[in-house]
């Protein structure tokens, strides 16, 4: 425990010391130890030291380390280039872009990994050499008909290859859209920086610079994420991933069958039967209870209609006077004449 704390302190001293030296020379030099790796090392030691407490911290610290580790060092490096120097919004935006690269959204989203989400990516990475071979040499053969005793197995493998190619294409299209969004974010960032050039509105800290970037990036992302183009790209990404998973699962089930193991399909089939039986039983119980609870018809009650009313009042000719509605504490009765016909059985 103490060792972890000591490691952090030593690495942090080294990191911040290097920063102090670098700042005295105005900007940190490459390989000075003040770069991102130095901060990552210090933060890694910090995470190890801090997680010596309760286990529930691990996820939080994991997120913290993954995300904070890079951002703070990058922010520092960019800001340091302009400390005490004349500069413009474009200079800062360009430096920021150089630090983050052409598609920071892709990097951010790739960092969004966690338990249960690695499977497909790990499998894809492991299968990458074979899949690249498929793309280069055999793409056109994946659609060819299969013959003979093992044709079903061959078709499943072909399906897997096709699914992988679809997934790669979908991922490329999605990343391309994110790259466009990234450029939009940089442009917005520069515009926001330009608004801060006048005295009194300048950014006084690395954190403020990062927060401004986040504002720009979120605005650009929101515009993209609400677009039809994103809807299609995201939908294709999810659908392609599911097809790939399904193709892999089908092959895995075959392998399990060979070993006499119960498959997911078999278990699902059993669960489906149980759920449906339970549902039917409960429907019968509800009907029986409703019949028992049904009071004798009263002369004054309205007759029940043969069918229920239309789907919603939006579909009815007499719309409500919405201006009659109110905020808290002031409910307003709707005009009785506007009310649609209601089935009598609804009120008790």
């Amino acid at each position: 425990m103490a060792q972890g704390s000591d490691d952090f302190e030593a690495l942090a001293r080294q990191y911040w010391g290097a920063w102090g030296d670098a700042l005295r020379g105005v900007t940190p030099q490459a390989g000075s130890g003040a770069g991102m790796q130095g901060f990552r090392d210090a933060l890694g030691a910090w995470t190890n030291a801090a997680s010596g407490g309760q286990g529930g911290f691990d996820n939080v610290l994991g997120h913290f380390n993954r995300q904070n580790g890079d951002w703070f060092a990058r922010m520092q490096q960019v800001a340091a280039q302009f400390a005490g120097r004349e500069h413009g919004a474009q200079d800062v935006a360009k430096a920021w872009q150089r630090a983050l690269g052409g598609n920071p959204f892709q990097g951010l989203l790739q960092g969004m990994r966690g338990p249960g989400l690695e499977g497909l990516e790990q499998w894809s990475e492991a299968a990458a050499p074979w899949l690249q071979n498929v793309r280069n040499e055999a793409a056109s053969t994946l659609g060819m008909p299969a013959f003979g005793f093992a044709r079903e197995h061959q078709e499943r493998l072909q399906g897997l290859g096709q699914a992988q190619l679809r997934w790669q294409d979908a991922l490329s299209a999605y990343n391309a859209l994110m790259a466009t969004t990234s450029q939009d974010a940089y442009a917005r960032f520069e515009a926001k920086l330009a608004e801060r050039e006048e005295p009194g509105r300048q950014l006084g800290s690395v954190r403020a610079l990062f927060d401004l970037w986040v504002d720009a990036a979120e605005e650009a992302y929101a515009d993209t994420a609400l677009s039809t183009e994103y809807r299609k790209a995201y939908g294709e990404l999810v659908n392609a991933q599911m097809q790939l998973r399904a193709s892999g699962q089908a092959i895995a089930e075959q392998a399990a069958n060979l070993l006499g193991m119960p498959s997911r399909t078999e278990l699902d089939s059993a669960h489906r039967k149980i759920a449906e039986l339970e549902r039917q039983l409960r429907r019968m119980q509800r009907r029986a209870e409703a019949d028992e609870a049904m009071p004798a018809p009263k002369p004054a009650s309205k007759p029940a209609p043969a069918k229920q009313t239309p789907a919603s009042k939006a579909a009815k000719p007499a719309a409500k006077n919405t201006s009659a509605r109110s905020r808290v504490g002031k409910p307003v009765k709707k005009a009785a004449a506007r009310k649609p016909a209601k089935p009598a059985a609804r009120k008790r």
Partner: protein
Amino acid sequence: MDAFGPLNITAESLAEEANKVQRKLEAGIGTLRAMDEVDFGVTAREEVWRDGKTVLYRFRGEREPTAEVPVLVSYALVNRPYMVDLQADRSLVKGLLERGEDVYIIDWGYPDRSDRFLTLEDYIERYIGGAIDHLRKAHGLDAVNLLGICQGGVFSLCYAALNPHKVKNLITMVTPVDFHTADNMLSNWNREIDVDLLVDTLGNIPADMMNLTYLMLKPWRLFAQKYVGMVDILDDKRAMEDFLRMEKWIFDSPDQAGEAFREFNTQFFQQNRFVTGGAKIGEREVHLGLVEMPILNIYAEQDHLVPPDASRALRDLAGTDDYTELSFKGGHIGIYVSGRAQKEVPQTIHDWLAKRAR
């Protein structure tokens, strides 16, 4: 010194900021090591009814309830019951109990693969219906109050439309009704997804996938800025405890039963059936025009998950004559846990119910 551009940063201020971060990180080691297991879900409760993994709890406050009609809370399947009872100073439940309400909550549990074929009918008619029938019997009432939150609000609307005589007053919180408003990001993403392929492939929908989707609504704020900002509170044990409770709140999510997910996404996210008509729960069609009991609809003005217009659509679709709105200045999560929420939301609900107690 003179300013030269958008950054008014000097070598000294940069070094000072860096030193401040280092001090925070150093202090954080001590803070985190000294912290006890963070508790959540603070109010005493007792199990009163159970069906499968679904459990109905009754909360016990420091005083006996004065309200004659109990309130049943139904929240989204992706959440846990303590979302409305996170800690002593952030608890909708506590606020309602202090005002004399008699509060119950459905715990949906954690579905496993054997629950894959649970449908919306199971969740709405079997579980909510079973809980409400239990309460009606236990309290000797024809109808009880129902408080639905987010997806639980959609469930509550469906239940109320199908069983209007069993719901005395309906409260919906951050509940989507019109799923196709232009600012609904989640809905936009759902439209082109092959939900059948998704559910057939995955079975239940993993909680991590759900949470990743929610994070992607605001990826820079929720996955980067939030943790960069965490440095500020590393030397504050109390603030870190609150932070960790919120992490638990957000990421402790059950997997989603596959068939219910299929039905919900298809009927609501893709087909917007409350508005277009034809929503079906089991064999029965849902008509919001049949929701005639009093409705209090609470929405959040900065809700990034359920845009206000998505909730406000209820005012034109519901059949009630007695419709009230509370527009809350906050977001989808702040409406449960912010300081403003503790002051406004329970009091509004209590006052509104009190006027409709008879």
